[in-house]
């Protein structure tokens, strides 16, 4: 199994898609709940697996293009088939996933093996009949949106109009129509005329969940810009600019790096945005630009270790963050296969671990705690014992229920609320 690079529930939560470093997409489907086995509440089983992207070679630059799936985004379901967008560094693809449970039999001109029948042997007309067959799930690429990004794509976001979507790379954001693959509109371009003056890149972008003219994008300097596509074709001038003033007492050479935003997500309500930087998760009210309304410390004990984390490159890890269905709880990952949840109402938080050694299936997860110096209690783990190679960068939350998917390197964990 390959390293999982993205996880995403669809809009109903029935399907869960994962993308990995090898360019594969695996889709899980939730079992129908049955009265006979109430304790097996809707488990997720593999529904479809397909190769979305292959490695490519850019001959002009003599560089490989990785097949790793950076993001998957589902389209809302409009018919029996499911549609999703998957992207690697350069190319976005629209995939159709559909079921086939019937097969036509009794062709007139060819026999069951597909060979053409001898015309002189055909004496009567016969019309094919659909007969049931074993369920087959097929994935077919319906659109390929290529050659529009010079830099690496970090985000895709489906617009609420369901007709367009955007793809963002380090310096540009493009707007696409699902039907048109040979053209896209460039809506944000922060590439300086002189590349030597480049000091800031785009790190994530997302459309507003309800207003199809509004989107946000975050930067490596810890800022978020909200843009309105109605104002101009090229949204280089933002409508709103979100930035928290720097805390002078915490200033160090690493301040900028740890302020770089790795993920930005609108709340389901559309009123708030959540951003993840290296040490914190912040919730912003769209109506207040000068500071976030909430800040949550994910792993502040790493603040004194920044130099080591810079040396081993962990400081550049890009963690994602997610809202629960009601926007009351937010979740993000950390190291040592830990992930954290923050309840915005009760202000309580919990640290949990995704690992087979430390929890049995269907056992309730035990809260974990990292001890910061001083005497270490029995169940606590000290900062120096943390395994920085076990990082949880990608998580997803079911749109309406308390089911979460957590990707721990090459393992996928699905956790649910306790069944009473």
């Amino acid at each position, binding site marked *: 199994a390959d390293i999982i690079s993205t996880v995403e529930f669809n809009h109903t939560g029935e399907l869960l898609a994962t993308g990995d470093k090898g360019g594969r997409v695996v889709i899980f489907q939730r079992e129908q709940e049955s009265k006979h086995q109430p304790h097996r509440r809707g488990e997720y089983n593999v529904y479809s697996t397909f190769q979305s992207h292959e490695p490519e*070679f850019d*001959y002009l630059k*003599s560089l490989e293009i990785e097949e790793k799936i950076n993001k998957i985004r589902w389209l809302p379901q409009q018919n029996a088939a499911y549609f999703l967008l998957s992207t690697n560094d350069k190319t976005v693809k629209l995939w159709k996933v559909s079921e086939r449970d019937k097969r036509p039999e009794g062709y007139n001109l060819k026999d069951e093996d597909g060979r053409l029948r001898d015309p002189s042997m055909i004496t009567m007309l016969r019309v094919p009949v659909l007969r049931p067959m074993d369920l087959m799930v097929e994935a077919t690429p319906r659109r390929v949106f290529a050659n529009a990004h010079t830099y*690496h794509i970090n985000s895709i976001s489906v617009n609420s109009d369901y007709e367009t979507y955007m793809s963002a790379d380090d310096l540009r954001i493009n707007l696409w129509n699902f039907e048109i693959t040979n053209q896209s509109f460039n809506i944000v371009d922060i590439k300086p005329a002189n590349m030597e003056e480049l000091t800031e890149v785009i790190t994530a972008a997302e459309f507003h969940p309800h207003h199809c003219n509004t989107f946000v994008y975050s930067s490596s300097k810890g800022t978020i810009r909200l843009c309105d596509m109605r104002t101009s074709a090229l949204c280089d001038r933002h409508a709103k600019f979100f930035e928290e003033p720097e805390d002078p007492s915490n200033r160090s050479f690493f301040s900028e790096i740890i302020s770089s935003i790795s993920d930005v997500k609108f709340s389901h309500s559309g009123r708030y945005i959540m951003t993840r930087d290296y040490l914190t998760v912040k919730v912003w009210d769209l109506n207040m630009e000068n500071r976030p309304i909430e800040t949550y410390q994910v792993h502040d004990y790493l603040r004194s270790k920044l130099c080591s984390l810079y040396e081993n490159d962990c400081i550049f890890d890009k963690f994602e963050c997610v809202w629960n269905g009601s926007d009351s709880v937010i979740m993000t990952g950390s190291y040592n296969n830990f992930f954290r949840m923050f309840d915005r109402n009760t202000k309580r938080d919990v640290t949990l671990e995704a690992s087979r050694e430390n929890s049995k299936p269907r056992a309730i997860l035990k809260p974990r705690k990292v001890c910061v110096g001083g005497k270490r209690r029995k169940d606590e783990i000290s900062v120096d014992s943390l395994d920085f190679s076990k990082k949880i960068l990608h998580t997803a939350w079911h749109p309406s229920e308390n089911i979460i998917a957590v990707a721990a390197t090459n393992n996928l964990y699905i956790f649910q609320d306790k069944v009473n």
Partner: protein
Amino acid sequence: MFVRGLKRKCFDGEEDIEGTLAGIKAIPSYNLQRQSLLDMSLVKLQLCHMLVEPNLCRSVLIANTVRQIQEEMTQDGTWQMINTQSTGQASLDCLVSTDILCRSSREQAEGKHVPGYSTFNKDFEGDQAQDSLETMSTASSVQAPRNLQNNVWEMENPQENKGNFQKSLDQIFETLENKSPNSVEDLFSEVDNSYYDLDTMLTGMMSNTKMGHCDGLETFTSPTTATSSSNCKSDLNELDHIVEILVES
């Protein structure tokens, strides 16, 4: 991993060092740590990962950190000017600029013998980095102190290692240059113009004209020639192989 020849001070846990700049600076220790951070950053920027394009965000963040350290060192007065060997060499000794980040490794190789960027390879020894540092070019006006190279990149057999590396690099460039030369028109006629972003082409052209090497364009491998591309890839693999031998990994 850490650079050879430089004793590492304990960086972590000394909060007053990583804390406010206006805080107490135990002068030798702080300067040394800042210097080692600068060195580490430069190594991270210089290392080239020949096959896959480097992460632009990471490169920009590291370059900003380097700039920040430079600014502080300039204010402190600890930034020393180096003697430039010649006007041509002056730019080569300068610190990295982000311009390099967006050029292909081949463009840099043909024009300036500068490798592209990559993720940080922990096994990469400091001796190779010195070669890269010496041949690095940039438009930044700040010049690296000579002692930067001498302090940091102490090595056991500098000349030999450097020679080996340079030789292998030269071999690879020679192989690439000896491909059947294409005229500029041929190059463009074979390229599907809709594919390549215009500014990628311009970047390549500009970097070559800047160096006065018009024949740089002639050495571009035709995209339709399968053999040359596979040769290119095998040359890159060869470089990886050589790097492995050099670092004895």
